[in-house]
């Protein structure tokens, strides 16, 4: 049994009882090959140097740390610092992982990339690195998400990717992942699947984590530089959980830093219309790994709901399940209206339009966490992406709100 976090996952890809490889036999050899290739690349200085160079010159890293003074003043408590992943190329942290995996695929001699996308940010990141590296790219996206995130569909097409609509089930991220896995099962000889989050079978949760910890490593140094101390809290939104794992893991051994993941409460966990896998799910197996899953009493995976397409997923990475079980990280949830309010608040107070995903983390900090703390305390929040893609959704919500107001006035 591994005793320190750095030994995880074990050779079977397990984080304690979570993780593993629950996939059809057809994919097992590909996962073994991928794990071996990844470990070799991870330990190869030339690979790491190439990745570091592209993260700097192509993706724009390091991303800044920003002291949000007006937001701090508004919340009336702890000092709020934002890790500006929205300023990375393509507008979200997703590029960190897409770059790493695409370089790995190239090294493995795979010329075709498949990816799933929910909000479209991972799909855009995958399409972007494929254009840069001259690789073929196919992105699967639920038709409901294509409607919600239309600008990103065009971005992917302009970048030369083929966007394939998925019409099964609720037509969101879960179905897109399933369809991408089916493509990979069929074309595994020449195709690499760039999964966008710390989910899926081993080695994905480990590999995606490693590519995303650049967020926390940078932020830890930047906090020390800006404040002379580590933050009291590190907060990030959790869908599949890649930006949060990337932020949390470098602080794992700093026991005084409290780690808080914010899940999507949708219309409220009690309504059943939510996407909070830890807060409202139970342990199961989805898309190749064991973790918390939103499921029926019969073990059928349920449709989820969140205003944010990127969090609209019924599972969460196995390492989060392990962090939760060990009590090292806490998980809370924020509902749609609070996330929407935080989206507007950050835009108005700081001139930063956050992704609706990231707005969940902002909402928790501004509404709940910071006001209860003193001005000497610090909260680090991962602003995982920018909100330009969400204009359609926010306009729709505002229109609904105005109709409701007019109806109320008419009565």
């Amino acid at each position: 049994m591994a005793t320190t976090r750095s030994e995880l996952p074990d050779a079977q890809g397990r984080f304690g009882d979570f993780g593993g490889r629950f996939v059809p036999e057809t994919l097992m050899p590909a996962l073994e090959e991928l794990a071996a290739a990844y470990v070799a690349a991870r330990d190869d200085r030339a690979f790491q140097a190439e990745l570091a160079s592209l993260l700097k010159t192509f993706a724009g890293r390091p991303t800044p740390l920003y002291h949000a003074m007006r937001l701090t003043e508004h919340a009336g408590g702890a000092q709020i610092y934002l890790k500006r992943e929205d300023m990375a190329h393509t507008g979200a942290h997703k590029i960190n992982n897409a770059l790493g995996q695409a370089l790995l695929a190239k090294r493995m001699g795979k010329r075709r990339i498949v990816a799933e996308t929910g909000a479209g940010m991972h799909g855009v990141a995958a399409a972007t690195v494929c254009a840069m590296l001259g690789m073929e790219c196919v992105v699967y996206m639920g038709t409901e998400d294509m409607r919600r995130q239309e600008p990103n569909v065009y971005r992917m097409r302009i970048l030369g990717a083929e966007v394939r609509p998925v019409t099964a089930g609720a037509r969101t991220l879960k179905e897109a992942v399933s369809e991408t896995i089916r493509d990979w099962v069929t074309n595994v000889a020449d195709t690499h699947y760039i999964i966008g989050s710390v989910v899926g079978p081993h080695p994905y949760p480990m590999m995606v984590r490693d590519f995303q910890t650049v967020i926390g490593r940078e932020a830890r140094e930047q906090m020390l530089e800006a404040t002379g101390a580590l933050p009291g809290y590190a907060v990030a939104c959790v869908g599949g959980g890649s930006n949060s794992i990337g932020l949390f893991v470098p602080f794992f051994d700093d026991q005084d830093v409290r780690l808080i993941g914010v899940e999507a409460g949708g219309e409220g966990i009690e309504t059943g219309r939510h996407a909070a896998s830890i807060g409202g799910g139970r342990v199961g197996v989805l898309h190749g790994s064991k973790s918390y899953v939103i499921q029926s009493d019969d073990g059928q995976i349920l449709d989820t709901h969140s205003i944010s397409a990127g969090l609209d997923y019924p599972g969460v990475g196995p390492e989060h399940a392990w962090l939760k079980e060990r009590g090292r990280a806490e998980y809370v949830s924020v509902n749609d209206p609070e996330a929407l309010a935080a989206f507007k608040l950050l835009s108005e107070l700081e001139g930063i339009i956050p992704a609706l995903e990231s707005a969940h983390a902002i909402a928790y900090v501004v509404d709940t966490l910071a006001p209860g703390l003193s001005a000497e305390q610090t909260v680090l929040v991962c602003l995982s992406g920018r909100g330009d893609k969400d204009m359609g959704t926010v306009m729709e919500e505002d229109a609904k709100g105005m109709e409701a107001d007019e109806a109320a006035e008419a009565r």
Partner: protein
Amino acid sequence: MTKRLDTAFQRMRDAKQTGIVPYVTVGFPASVEDTLAIVPAIEAAGAVAVELGVPYSDPLADGPTIQAASYRAVQAGVNARTCIDVVARLREAGVELPLLFMGYYNPILSYGIDAYARDCADAGLDGMIVVDLPPEESGPMRDALGRRELALISLLAPTSSDERIEMGTRGAAGFVYCVSVTGVTGARRELAKGLPAFVGRVRARTDLPIAVGFGVSERRHVEAIGKYADAAAVGSALIDVIDSAPPSERAARAGAFVAALAGARR
């Protein structure tokens, strides 16, 4: 019980026939009454065993036909308990055919592995294929089923290395299921070119009967498979036959299709 499977396959071998293992999703197309009528018809048509599909919301290894069948059954409320009840009712009705479940792991995990093995055995099931449970993860399931003399059928794929074929056939029971294609389920016109070589690699490592599935839809496929394997599994093509039949003729059409695949003279 594994014994029922062993006997059925031995009978096929003795008769120098290629067995047919039809697949039907439980509760498809309209209700469990369809399944209760279709399975006896399949038995009468000469199938060697039947796979009963346990519906699941996210069937990763299935193509559009079985995805749709599974989705409809889930929507109709068919769950693991329903499927176990169907097995018990088929046995009560006198079905002697080996009955297998084919499904995914999460509904089993949710039911409880031991309780599932116990209830399946009590109902009269003979074994199961759990599509997303490779040998590395199958320990608890294999133990629970073994205690009840139920077979956990090993799945092997064209991508499986010789080492993985060793792992999959070691301790296997009933028969070994070879996935004919690198891909998902669904009727295809032609069998994969590398199939005989792949099955040959498996044959060299086990004396158990070998069934070949995924993509099988015609008698000529069965004849080709019969040259190097013991049985052919047929799913999507049969689902299509059942789906396009008038309600009163579903069982008869399913039986006729299986009989034709088995090479029965009309």
